[in-house]
C-alpha cells in the first residue's frame, strides 16, 4: 500500500512536471508567435548585444562594393595600373617606367581604376603638405591604343588631335613638337589658360601600344621648367618612342586587331548570365602556341569576367611569327557594348 501510494505520487509528480513544463513551453511559444515587436537579429535588424563575437565594422573609406572594375587572370603578370609610388619614385613594371619624384612631391591618393575606354591614371602627384609653397600637379596617364576613343594611332597623332581640338579656354604656347626625354622620343606641346594663369606642359610617348602621357601644370613657369628638366631622370624601356612602342624584347609584341577572324583558329563566345550595357575592354597575351596565356580586364563586372575567361580559355590563335620564330603577342578585344566613339572608328570587337 505504501509502495503503491509512492508509485501514485511519482505519477502525480511526473504529471505536474509535464503540465508545468508544457505550460512554460507553450507560454514561450506563445510569446514567440505573438511578439511581433521583438527585434530579430540578421537582415536589417540587430540588437548587437551578442558580446561574444568581435563586431565586424565596415572599414572607413574603402570601396568594397565595386561596379565594373579591373582584374586579371593571374596576379603575377604586371598590369598597366599596377604601378605605385614608393622610395620617392613612381615605378611601373608593365611599362618598365621609373620616374624619380621631385623633392617634396608625393602622391596623396591613387587614381581611379582604368576606364572602359582604356584610360589609366597611373600617378597623380602634388607637392606634399610640408611643401605647400609650391603649387602644381603632375599627372601621369596612359591610353590603351587598342581602345582609344580618339582618332589617333600614336602619340604624335594624339598630341595633334589635342592641339586641333583645344578648348576655347586655352591658348597654345607650344605646337606639338618632338623632343627627347631620357634618350627616348616624346611629343611635347604646351598651352595655358589666361584666366586661370595656369600652364600645362604635355609630354607623350608610346609604350606597348599605349600612349603614356605626362601632364605638368602650374601657374609658376619656373617650376614647370624645373619639373621638365627633372623628367630626364626617368627610366624608360628601349621601345618607348613617338610611334615605336610596340612591345617586343622582354615583353610581348603588341598588335592591334590580332583577334580578327584571319588569326583565330577557333573561338567560343562568352555566355553572359545577365544583360549589362557596359563596354568590356580586354587585353590578352597569346603564347607561342596560340593559346591565351593572360587576360586583363580593364573594366568588367564579376559575372562578365567569369564568362569571358571561360570563353577565351577555349580560343586558339595562329602563333605570331617574327623572323621565323613564334613569339608572344598582346592584343585587345572589346566585349559587351562598344562605346559609340570607339565603334565609329571600327575598334576590335568580339561581336563581329
Amino acid at each position: 500500500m505504501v509502495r503503491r501510494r509512492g508509485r501514485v505520487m511519482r505519477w502525480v509528480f511526473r504529471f505536474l512536471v509535464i503540465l508545468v513544463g508544457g505550460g512554460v513551453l507553450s507560454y514561450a511559444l506563445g510569446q514567440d508567435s505573438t511578439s511581433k515587436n521583438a527585434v530579430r537579429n540578421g537582415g536589417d535588424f540587430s540588437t548587437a548585444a551578442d558580446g561574444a563575437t568581435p563586431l565586424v565594422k565596415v572599414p572607413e573609406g574603402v570601396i568594397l562594393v565595386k561596379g565594373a572594375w579591373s582584374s586579371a587572370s593571374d596576379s603575377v603578370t604586371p598590369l598597366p595600373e599596377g604601378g605605385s609610388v614608393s622610395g620617392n619614385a613612381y615605378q611601373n613594371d608593365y611599362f618598365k617606367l621609373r620616374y624619380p619624384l621631385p623633392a617634396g612631391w608625393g602622391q596623396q591618393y591613387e587614381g581611379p581604376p582604368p576606364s572602359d575606354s582604356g584610360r589609366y591614371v597611373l600617378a597623380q602627384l602634388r607637392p606634399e603638405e610640408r611643401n605647400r609653397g609650391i603649387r602644381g600637379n603632375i599627372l601621369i596617364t596612359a591610353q590603351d591604343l587598342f581602345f582609344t576613343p580618339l582618332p589617333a594611332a600614336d602619340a604624335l597623332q594624339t598630341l595633334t588631335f589635342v592641339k586641333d581640338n583645344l578648348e576655347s579656354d586655352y591658348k597654345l604656347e607650344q605646337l606639338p613638337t618632338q623632343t627627347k626625354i631620357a634618350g627616348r622620343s616624346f611629343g611635347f606641346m604646351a598651352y595655358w589658360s589666361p584666366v586661370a594663369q595656369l600652364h600645362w606642359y604635355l609630354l607623350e610617348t608610346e609604350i606597348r601600344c599605349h600612349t603614356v602621357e605626362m601632364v605638368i601644370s602650374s601657374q609658376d613657369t619656373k617650376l614647370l621648367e624645373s619639373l621638365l628638366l627633372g623628367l630626364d631622370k626617368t627610366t624608360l624601356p628601349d621601345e618607348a618612342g613617338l610611334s615605336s612602342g610596340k612591345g617586343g624584347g622582354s615583353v610581348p609584341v603588341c598588335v592591334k586587331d590580332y583577334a580578327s577572324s584571319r588569326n583565330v583558329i577557333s573561338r567560343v563566345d562568352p555566355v553572359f548570365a545577365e544583360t549589362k550595357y557596359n563596354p568590356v575592354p580586354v587585353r590578352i597575351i597569346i603564347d607561342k602556341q596560340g593559346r591565351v596565356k593572360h587576360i586583363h580586364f580593364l573594366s568588367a563586372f564579376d559575372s562578365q569576367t567569369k564568362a569571358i575567361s571561360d570563353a577565351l580559355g577555349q580560343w586558339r590563335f595562329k602563333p605570331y611569327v617574327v623572323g621565323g620564330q613564334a613569339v608572344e603577342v598582346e592584343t585587345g578585344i572589346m566585349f559587351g557594348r562598344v562605346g559609340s566613339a570607339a565603334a565609329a572608328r571600327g575598334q576590335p570587337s568580339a561581336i563581329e
Partner: protein
Amino acid sequence: MLKKAAVMSALAIAVLCLSAISDAQTDPGVQSGSRGTGAALSSVQSDDNAGILAMFNDGQSRFQEVESVSGAGDTGLGPRFNSNSCSSCHAQPAVGGSGAANNPQATFISTGVAPKDSTPYFVTPTGPTVEARFPFYFNRNGSANLNAPNGGVEDLFTVTGRPDAGSCSLTQPSFSAARAANNIIFRIPTATFGSGLIENIDDSTLLSNQAKNLNNRLGISGTFNHNGNDGTISRFGWKAQNKSLHIFSGEAYNVEMGISNLLFTQDRPLPGEEGGGGSGQTGFPSNCLNLSGKGYPEDTMNPGQSGPGVLDDASAFANFMRTLAPPATGPVVLNGSTVPTSSISNGAALFSSIGCAACHNPTPGTTQKSNITGSLSNAAVNAYSDLEIHHMGSGLTDNVAQGGAGGDQFRTAPLWGLGQRIFLLHDGRTTSLITAIRAHNSRGSEASTVEGNYQNLSPSQQQDLLNFLRSL
C-alpha cells in the same frame, strides 16, 4: 625697446597675414533672394498644349498633400516611410527643391506622425532631411556581413501606434547597431527643377559629349548608367539609377512614403524584412497589409474624375516635376554686399579652365522636340552635368551599387540651383562649398587633379569661383 616693438609689429603683421590667408575664401552661402525658382516652364504658364497648366497646378497641389494611413482624404502611407509628403523633403528654396533648413523628420514623433517610434540619432532639427541605407546586411551578432551587400532604403519610421493604422506594429531598423558597425549611409533629396529638360536630352547627344570629353588631360573618364529594361541611358537619382520622372516619382512614392502605385504595385518591406541577407523573414505581417482598406495599388487612376484629376498621384507628381522651370541664376551677396558681376564671370571662366566643366558640363545639350509643351523643345539644358557616372573615390563612396553604378560611382550632380541649396554632396554632410570641393579629392577619385587645379589658384581666383557657384 624700439627693436622689440618692431619685432612685435612684424609678428602682428605676420599673424594678420596668416589670418587673411586662412580666411581668404568664403562660401557666400545660401542665397536668400527670390530667383523665381519653383515656377512652371514659360510655355506651361501660357498653357501651350491646352490643359498643361491645369496639370502643373494639380501636380503641384498633390506634391504637397500630407498622406494618412487610412480614413478620408489622401491615404496609403506606410507601413514604413521616410516622410508623409513629397514637399516635406523637396522644399528648398521652393516646392520641388532639395531639403529645407528645418528637417520635418525631427518632429514626427512629437506630432504623432510616428508616435511609437524613436527619432533616429542622425535626424536633427536643423540637419539634412535624409533617407538611410545599410550597405551590408547584419550578421546575427550585429556585425556587418561584408559578403552580403544590401544597399536598399531603410525607412526611418513606421505607422505603429497611429490611430489610423489599426494593430500594425513594426520595429524600426537597427540604426544604432548600424552606427556601431559603421554600416549606414545617407542620401538627401535631389532638386527637381528643370528635370523635364534633363529627361528630354537624347542619348545620342550624351554619347557624343562623352566621346568628345574623353579628350581631356585631367584623368577623367566617365560612363553611363543604363535602364535595365531597354538599355537606354538612365539619368535621375544620385547614381543615375532612374530612367524617367515617372519611374522616379513612382519609386519615391513607394519607397519614401510606403504608397504602392501603378509603377510599384506592392507595399515595400525592408530589404531584410522579405528575406534579404538570410533573415528568414517573409514580408509584412497580414495586419500591416492593405492598411488603407482600399486595396492595391493604393494610388491609382481616377476614372470618375475629369481633367487632370483622372491621373494617379505618381503621374501627377511626374508631370509637375517635368514642367518645373529650371532654376534661374541670380546675384550673389557675400558678407552683406553684392558681388560684382565681373567676379562671377571670372569664376565661370575659371570653372571651365581648371576642368570642373569636364564633368559639370554647363550645357550638355539641347532637348529633342517635345510632345508635351514648347519650352521642352529645342531648349538649352544648362544643368552643369554630363549625366555620366564617375568614380568619386574612397572619401565619397557609399558602397551602394545601383544598376551599373558601383559603390564609389555617382552621377555628376547638376549644379543649376546650387546657389540656393543648403546641404551639399549626396549625404548632405556639409553646407560648405569649400568642403564639398575638397571632398572631390580622395583615393580613386576621377576629380583629384581638378581639385588640385582649384588648390593651385590664387585666393582671389578661388573666391571668384565660389561666387560663381552661388550665382547658379
